């Protein structure tokens, strides 16, 4: 009797192992197909950036080639891509900093003091088409002659970063139990010190995700700079776009430019990936 059940369970466990082996093979095959579809274009971009122009246009396409840095060298020697990178960093860094400065206290205030409607207000920016704001901004900025300044670009990009930060941080602050700060409040600690010394340190993972995401969003955002930047402030995205016209058939140059815009974003994602996906989808799942 005992041996029989032992045999039976051994049998069923074998079946179970067989099943998982088969089903994980099926999963891997599906993953491989999806991987080719979704990740291949990025691999293609990176590959083409390092190919000689002859190899890019070769038919059939070459997957094995001797890599070259010529296209990147060209970007920095013949075109001021170094300057564009600095411009992008200033605008992205500035709008992320301003977004944090405005957004973190706002999210805390909204989460703790029942002022959620203020966070709601920032969401208008998520609904309205960017050109809707851009029309008045352009009219005002050209009247005041402040187009093509870092300030204008930083402030307008904060329209992207600030609401993002408010909404991410709102959920982080709501998760921090009130009890932690109550004793501090009773001891006479002011609300700003409670925010600065208790809540911000506790919400640090959330702040890192917000910083990373708003950096990515501002870095990627193209429309506002397209209209409001000029020769002094052209960021990478607009420069790369203009490059399509300048170097119509220079595929290698184009792919190198695309790579230069993309790589910083990929690095950030690799750094904060553990929190990033949770951060980006937390609001949606709840």
């Amino acid at each position, binding site marked *: 009797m005992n041996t029989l059940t032992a045999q039976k369970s051994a049998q069923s466990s074998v079946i179970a192992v067989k099943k998982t082996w088969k089903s994980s093979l099926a999963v891997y095959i599906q993953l491989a197909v999806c991987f080719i579809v979704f990740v291949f274009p990025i691999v293609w971009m990176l590959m083409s950036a390092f190919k000689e122009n002859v190899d890019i246009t070769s038919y059939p396409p070459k997957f094995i080639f001797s890599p070259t840095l010529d296209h990147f060298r060209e970007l920095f020697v013949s075109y001021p891509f170094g300057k564009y990178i600095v411009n992008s960093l200033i605008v992205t860094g500035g709008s992320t900093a301003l977004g944090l400065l405005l957004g973190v206290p706002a999210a805390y205030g909204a989460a703790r003091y029942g002022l959620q409607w203020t966070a709601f207000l920032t969401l208008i920016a998520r609904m309205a088409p960017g050109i809707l704001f851009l029309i008045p901004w352009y009219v005002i900025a050209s009247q005041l002659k402040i187009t093509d300044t870092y300030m204008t670009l930083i402030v307008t990009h904060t329209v992207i970063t600030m609401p993002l930060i408010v909404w991410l941080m709102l959920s982080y602050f709501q998760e921090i139990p009130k009890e932690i700060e109550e004793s501090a409040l009773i001891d006479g600690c002011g609300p700003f010190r409670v925010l600065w010394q208790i809540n911000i340190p506790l919400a640090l993972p959330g702040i890192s995700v917000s910083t990373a995401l708003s950096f990515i969003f501002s870095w990627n955002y193209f429309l506002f700079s397209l209209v409001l930047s000029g020769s002094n402030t052209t960021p990478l995205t607009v420069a*790369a776009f203009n490059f399509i016209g300048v170097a119509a058939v220079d595929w290698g140059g184009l792919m190198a430019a695309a790579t230069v815009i993309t790589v910083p974003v990929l690095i950030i994602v690799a750094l904060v990936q553990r929190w990033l996906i949770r951060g980006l989808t937390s609001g949606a799942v709840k």
Partner: protein
Amino acid sequence: MSVPSSRTSLTRLAPWIMVLPSVIFTVLLIGFPIVYVIYLMFTKWAPGSSFWGLPFVGLDNVKATFKDVLFWKSTWITLKISAISLFFEVVLGTYLGILLSKSVKGIKVLRVLFFFPAIVPSVAAGMVWVQLYDPSLGFLNYVLQTFHLPAGTWLNDPESVIYALSIVDIWQWTPFIAMIVLGGIQALPEDPYEAAYMDGASKTQALFYITLPMLKQTILIALMLRSVDMLRIFDTIYVMTQGGPINSSTSLNIYGYQQGFLYTSMGKASTAMLFLLLIVMTISFLLTRWRKRYV
């Protein structure tokens, strides 16, 4: 929250001091522009004209916009490209999300890699896809011809351009929906599955009778997030076709951009953008109601 007995006025004002800067910022940079766009809708703006005191033209801009064939074409294009893209993004995104929820070796790394399309700058994505779509040198036609399939005209044909642009959008945003679906799956309770497997349900049955019904809410939220962005599609189209060929990929956002910043017709641009805002709000309102009623 327990209230300290000796409240200074600073303490009382603290919540407002925290919240007001962001509120003022929102009112100045988002609220005021919306009001000003309504003003522009009824006035005539020309390059160099002052900020206030523009000549009042009544409904001329609105009439001109609504009489513009291209305006209605753009509206149709916006709705069409949104419907096609959203449909495939939701279906494929749900599939990919379920696939990524499987616990196989290396899945955590794969989840990050699959996320890449969603964070690649649209400008870069557009540039890459322009290359992939190139009729004579592009990789896609090479693949098609290898399998003895007819080469596509992709972006160069008014008939196919919308579908080609949809494919790029689907490529870029399916992983985003997949991540939301994955989050939803990870939050699902285990008990229904245990009960179902005890009763001898197969994995396919569990998927269709347990997982998908419980995911409805998550999928609808993902759809809502995406539709708000999708209806305002601009970057990819502007980078890849600038609305062409012969305006056959001019979305409303592209139309607004062209009217405003190429033809300096701010009145028409304003009308079109307010119309687009109305569409976005209506559709997200309908989706919200649908979600509340049927899920």
